[in-house]
C-alpha cells in the first residue's frame, strides 16, 4: 500500500511532508496549544487568589476598629497593605490599582457602639476588577458581620446566655453552602477545563480550513484529489488524518495535565473525557470542512472558522452562563461544538453522573463530524474550477 502514488496512505504521506515543510503548521498545531496549556495552568496555579491587596481608612482609631483590622488581615484572601488618612486617598489608590478595595471605619464607631447608637462601617471594592472585588467583598462582609456579632455576643453573654443560645439569637438561620464538584471554588478548575479545549478547537478550525484551501490557492488541489481517484471524501479524510492524530496527541497532553498531574476532579474517570476530547476534535474538523466546502474563498471561510472558534469561548457558557445571554444567542449556542464539550465536562468530570445523561451531547458532537457530507461535493467542484482571489 505504501509507496504507491495513489490511495489513502499516499495522501497521508504527502500531507506529512507538507506539514513538515512549513513551520506555520508546527507553530499552530503544536506550539500554540502547548503554550496555552502551560500558560493557563500555571497562571491560576494558586486556584483561589490569596492575599489580595486591600486598604483601610480608620478614622476612628480605637481598640474596636483596630481589632476589626487585625481580624481582617488574618483572612487568607485579604492582605491589608496600607492605611489611608481619608476616603479620597483610598479612592485614588484604588484608581491607581494599588488596592482592590478598602474598609472605611468612620470616626466615633466605638463610641457609638458602646453607647448603643448603631454606627455604620462601609466596604468599598473596585468593580472594574470583578474577581478580586467579589473575593474581597466576601472577606470584608464576613468581618463586618462578625464585628457586629462580637459586640452583640458580649452583650448577650453578659446577660447570662450561653454560647449556643447567643449564636441562636444572633443568627437563628444559618446557611451551609456546599459547592458540588469544586468545593475549593478553584478558578483553575473552573476556567482551564474549558479554555484549554477551546484553544485547541480554535486551532483545529483554522488549520483545517487553511490546509484545505491552500491546496486550492497553490493549485495543488487537482493533484491531491486525483490521488484519491477523484473521491473527495477519501481525499479529505486522508489529508486530515495526520492532523487528527497530532491534535489527539495534544488533547492527551492536556487531559493528562489536568486530570493526572494537577488532579482536577474527573469523577467518572479518564475515558469519558478522552472520548469527548476526540469527538471535539472530529467535530471541529467536520465543521471546518463544512465551511471550507460551502465558501470557496480562503479568506472568507477562514474568517468564519476563526469567528466560530473565538466566539465559542464566551458562548459555551463556562464563565458567563448561557441562561444570562440574550435569547438569540442562547439559541445560537447550540451551533458550537465547544458548548457540548463543556456540558459533557460538567456531567462527567465535575459532577460524575451516569453517562446516560450526557449521551445526547456526544451525539451532537458526532453530528458535527458528519456535517461535511452535506456539501463536500462543492469542494470537489471548486478544486476543478477554482481560481484564487486575494
Amino acid at each position: 500500500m505504501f509507496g504507491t502514488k495513489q490511495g489513502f496512505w499516499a495522501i497521508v504521506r504527502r500531507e506529512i511532508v507538507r506539514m513538515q515543510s512549513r513551520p506555520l503548521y508546527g507553530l499552530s498545531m503544536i506550539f500554540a496549544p502547548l503554550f496555552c496549556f502551560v500558560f493557563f495552568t500555571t497562571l491560576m496555579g494558586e486556584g483561589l487568589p490569596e492575599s489580595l491587596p486591600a486598604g483601610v481608612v480608620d478614622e476612628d482609631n480605637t481598640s474596636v476598629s483596630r481589632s476589626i483590622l487585625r481580624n481582617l488581615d488574618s483572612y487568607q484572601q485579604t492582605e491589608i497593605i496600607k492605611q489611608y488618612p481619608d476616603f479620597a486617598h483610598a479612592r485614588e489608590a484604588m484608581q491607581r490599582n494599588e488596592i482592590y478595595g478598602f474598609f472605611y471605619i468612620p470616626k466615633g464607631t466605638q463610641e457609638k457602639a458602646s453607647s448603643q447608637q448603631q454606627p455604620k462601617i462601609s466596604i468599598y471594592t473596585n468593580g472594574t476588577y470583578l474577581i478580586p472585588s467579589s473575593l474581597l467583598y466576601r472577606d470584608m462582609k464576613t468581618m463586618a458581620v462578625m464585628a457586629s456579632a462580637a459586640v452583640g455576643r458580649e452583650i448577650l453573654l453578659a446577660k447570662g446566655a450561653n454560647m449556643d443560645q447567643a449564636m441562636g439569637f444572633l443568627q437563628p438561620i444559618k446557611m451551609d453552602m456546599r459547592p458540588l464538584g469544586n468545593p475549593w471554588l478553584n478558578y483553575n478548575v473552573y476556567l482551564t477545563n474549558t479554555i484549554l479545549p477551546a484553544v485547541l478547537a480554535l486551532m483545529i478550525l483554522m488549520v483545517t480550513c487553511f490546509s484545505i484551501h491552500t491546496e486550492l490557492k497553490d493549485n495543488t488541489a487537482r493533484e491531491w484529489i486525483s490521488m484519491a481517484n477523484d473521491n473527495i471524501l477519501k481525499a479529505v479524510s486522508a489529508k486530515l488524518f495526520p492532523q487528527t492524530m497530532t491534535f489527539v496527541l495534544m488533547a492527551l497532553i492536556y487531559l493528562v495535565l489536568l486530570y493526572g498531574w494537577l488532579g482536577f476532579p474527573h469523577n467518572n474517570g479518564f475515558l469519558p473525557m478522552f472520548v469527548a476530547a476526540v469527538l471535539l476534535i472530529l467535530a471541529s474538523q467536520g465543521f471546518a470542512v463544512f465551511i471550507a466546502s460551502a465558501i470557496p474563498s480562503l479568506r472568507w471561510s477562514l474568517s468564519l472558522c476563526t469567528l466560530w472558534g473565538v466566539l465559542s469561548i464566551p458562548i459555551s457558557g463556562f464563565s458567563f452562563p448561557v441562561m444570562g445571554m440574550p435569547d438569540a444567542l442562547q439559541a445560537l449556542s447550540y451551533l458550537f461544538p465547544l458548548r457540548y464539550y463543556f456540558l459533557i465536562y460538567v456531567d462527567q468530570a465535575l459532577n460524575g453522573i451516569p453517562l446516560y445523561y450526557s449521551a445526547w451531547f456526544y451525539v451532537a458532537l458526532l453530528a458535527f463530524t458528519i456535517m461535511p457530507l452535506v456539501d463536500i461535493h462543492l469542494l470537489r467542484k471548486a478544486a476543478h474550477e477554482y481560481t484564487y482571489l486575494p
Partner: protein
Amino acid sequence: MWVKDLLDVTGKELRSILSDVGVLVFFIIVPVLYPLLYAYLYGREVVREVPVVVVDECRSATSREFLRKCDATPDLRIISYCSDMEEARNLIHRHKAYGLIHIPSEFENTLVQGLQSTVNLYCDMSGLLYYKALLSGCTMVSLDMNRDIQMVRLSGLSDREKDVMTMPIENEYVTMFNPVNGFQAFLIPAILILVLQQTLILGVSMLAGTEAERRRSGQLILGHEYDNPITVLGGKALAYLLVYGFTATYVLCFVPWLFHMPQLWQLPTLVAFVVPFLLASIFFAICISFFVRDRESCFLLFVFVSVPLIFMSGISWPTSNMPAFWKVLAQFFPSTHGVNGFARINTSGALLQDVRMESLSLWILTGIYFMLSLFIYERMYRSDKMPGVEFVLAMRTHARKNLREMSRDIKSRLKK
C-alpha cells in the same frame, strides 16, 4: 524632502489598505461588529432567576416562608418542590436546575428552642455565577428572617433598642465603578482594547504577507524607491494611525455609550493615553508582521494569542497573584498596559497621573518596537538574502531615471 516622502508612503499605504478587502475586514468590519457582539452577549450583566429545586423536609410555616422569600428574590426561581433528594438531583443532572435548597426536618423545632438552625445549599459549580446567585439570594433572605425572629424574641423592647441589639454595628457595601457588579462593565473595556491591538496585528500582517508574496514572485514592493527606512516606517505608521484614529474613537467611545456602560473618562486623559497605546500597537504589529510569509497565515499565528493576552492583562485573574514569569512577559504587550489604563480611565474615572505607569510603559514599548522594526527592516531589505529583488529594483530606478531624462530631453528640444 523627507516630509514629502513620508506623506507619499502614507498615501500609498492608505491606498493599499483601501483596495484590499481582507485588510479592510480587519481594520473596519471586525472592530465595528465584534465589540457590538460582545457587549450584546454580556448585556444582561448578571444572571437573574437562576432555577433551583427545593427539598423541604420540615414543611412548616417558617420553612415555607423561607422558600417563598427565596423565590421572590431577583436571584432565584424555584422550579420544583421535590419529595426527596433523588428527585431533586435528577433535575440538576438534567441541567433543569443549578442549585438545591434543602431544609432539614428539625428546622423549625430548633428555631423554637432558640438555637441555631441550618439550611443546606447545594450548588452546581459549572458556573461561579450560579454559586453567587444562590448564596447571595439565600443569605439575603436569611438575614431578613433572622431579624424578624429576633424582633419577636425581643418583644417588650423599643424598636430602636431592637435595632441596636440585632445589629450593633451596621455595614454597607458599595462596588465602586460597577454598580451592578456585572460582567459587561468589567470585561468589555478589556475586550475593546484587545480588539484594537489584535485587528492591527492581523491587518498589518496581512499587508506584510501580501508584500512577501509579491516579493517572492519578483514584483516591486513599496518602500524601495525611498532611501531612508525611517521615512517608510514612519509613513506606514502614520497611515495606520490615521485609520485607527477613527476606529479607536468608534470602539472606545461609541460602543460603551451605545450600551450605557460607565464612561467616566475625561477627554485629555483619554487622548493622551490612547495615542501611545495605538503607537505601541502599531510598531508592535509592524515588528511581528515581518515573520509573516503569506496573506492568510496571520490567522493561524496571532488569533489565539488574544485568549492568553486577556488573562495577562490582569482584568480577570488579579495581577498580584500571577507567577512572576508571566507578569514579566505581559509587560511586552501593549494590550496589558492598554487594558489596565483604559479600564481605569473609562470605568473608574482615573486621570493621567493615576495611569502614569501604564502610559510610560506604552511610550517605552513604542520606542522599543520602533527601534526593533527599524533594525529588522534595514536587515531584511538590504540583505542579500533576497537575490533578484535588489536587481529588479535597481532596474526600475534606472529605467525611471532614464525615462525622466528622456522626457526632459524631449521637452527641452520641443522648446527649442
